């Protein structure tokens, strides 16, 4: 079974970002997406801490400690970028100005419910950051996640087991096994990796799936 690496999941998600889109990349897996946006597309990356037009990580010797991304890693600004304050950064999010938020998740439900902020571990305090603002506010939510946990448990569920970030917001899911759309009729598998059939995918998924008539192979280059 040709399952995708984390970088390949990011590559696949990047192919769907249209030229000119304003995009927020969540912490973790989604952050990798910025490396794979097709060169012929101009995409404006937004960061919750007051940046539009984030560029790649700085080259050695060009790091600026006052220029960080939402994950608190050093970043850069590309020509056309702008700085603003936190309140305007979240006005852009809450007000529906962000075209696409690509987020990580613990779980997604068949209704598009998103759980990505807490696993309710009583030993550590919870943190939410901008997750709920993005989930509720961005025009379109797309999720990148491993199809199953390390223990093999499904992450795409009938109902989320973990507390919700927002109900009914996810539109598309990219995993190491498939690309799945959340539709009013339910989850529709659009792409599946080579060596896994639909029944096999369903086996690894708690929620009920449908197979798109025009489904195709999920493939990604070695990246």
């Amino acid at each position, binding site marked *: 079974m040709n399952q995708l690496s984390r970088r390949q999941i990011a590559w696949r998600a990047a192919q769907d970002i249209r*030229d*000119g889109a304003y995009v927020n990349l969540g912490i973790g897996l989604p952050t990798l997406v910025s490396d794979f946006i097709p060169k012929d597309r101009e995409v*404006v990356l*937004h960061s919750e801490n007051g940046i539009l037009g984030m560029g790649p990580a700085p080259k050695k010797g060009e790091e600026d400690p006052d220029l960080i991304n939402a994950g608190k890693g050093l970043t850069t600004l590309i*020509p*056309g970028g702008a700085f603003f304050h936190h309140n305007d950064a979240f*006005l852009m999010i*809450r*007000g*529906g100005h962000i075209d696409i938020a690509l987020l990580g998740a613990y779980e997604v439900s068949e209704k598009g419910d998103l759980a990505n902020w807490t696993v309710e571990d009583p030993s550590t305090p919870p943190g939410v950051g901008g997750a709920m603002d993005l989930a509720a506010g961005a025009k379109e939510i797309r999720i990148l996640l491993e199809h199953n946990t390390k223990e093999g448990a499904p992450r795409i569920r009938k109902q989320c087991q973990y507390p919700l970030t927002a109900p009914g917001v996810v539109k598309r899911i990219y995993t190491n096994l498939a690309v799945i759309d959340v539709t009013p009729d339910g989850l529709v598998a659009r792409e599946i990796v080579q060596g896994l059939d639909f029944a096999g995918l369903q086996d690894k998924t708690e929620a009920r799936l449908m197979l798109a008539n025009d489904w195709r192979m999920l493939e990604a280059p070695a990246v």
Partner: protein
Amino acid sequence: MIDKQVKNVTEAVSGIKDGSTLLFAGFGAVGEPVELIQALLDSGARDLTVVCNNSGTGEVGLAKLIKERRVTKLVCSFPRTSDSHCFEEAFAEGAIELELVPQGTMSERMRAAGAGIAGFYTKTSAGTKLAAGKETREFDGKTYVLEKPLKGDVALIKALKADRWGNLVYRKSARNFNPVMAMAADLTIAQVKEIVPLGALDPEIIVTPSIFVDRIVEVGQ
């Protein structure tokens, strides 16, 4: 590639439908997108709701739109200014509806539309005729009025400079309603004096980031 530049003001206002809600920036004539409003006049659009701090002057721009009875409703804080006779005549005839809104509430309602806020409570207008029919509520013993978002289908705004992404900077008090209206419409169209190369605007001084702007047109005045 992102290029929000359009060739001329005619193209800039193309597609504005009859029946639209339009936000017109400016405080009096300062910061007013005169050329865009003229192009809108020429486009023939009608049955418009216009949100504007004032009601137009003389017989040009918004005043002319009103004179031609193409504005069915004006949302406004201060319709009576020097030479606002077009509006006053239409109002006296009952040919235009006026929704009078306190200036700060008008601005905050547009911000709410841009910021994803479905309603907010303000002291402004509490205990006055302008709160008539509005829901009120006590917080800490004071009366507040619930105000709702004021969203435009289209905003016509004016700035000093833009780049091809649509980042904007303004000049002095010509900034006024322009940034908040830019946030509050589905389609924001900006006329600017000058379009500069991408990267020429210092990222620290951009007032309206490009995300709020859809079309820009250089009018060179």
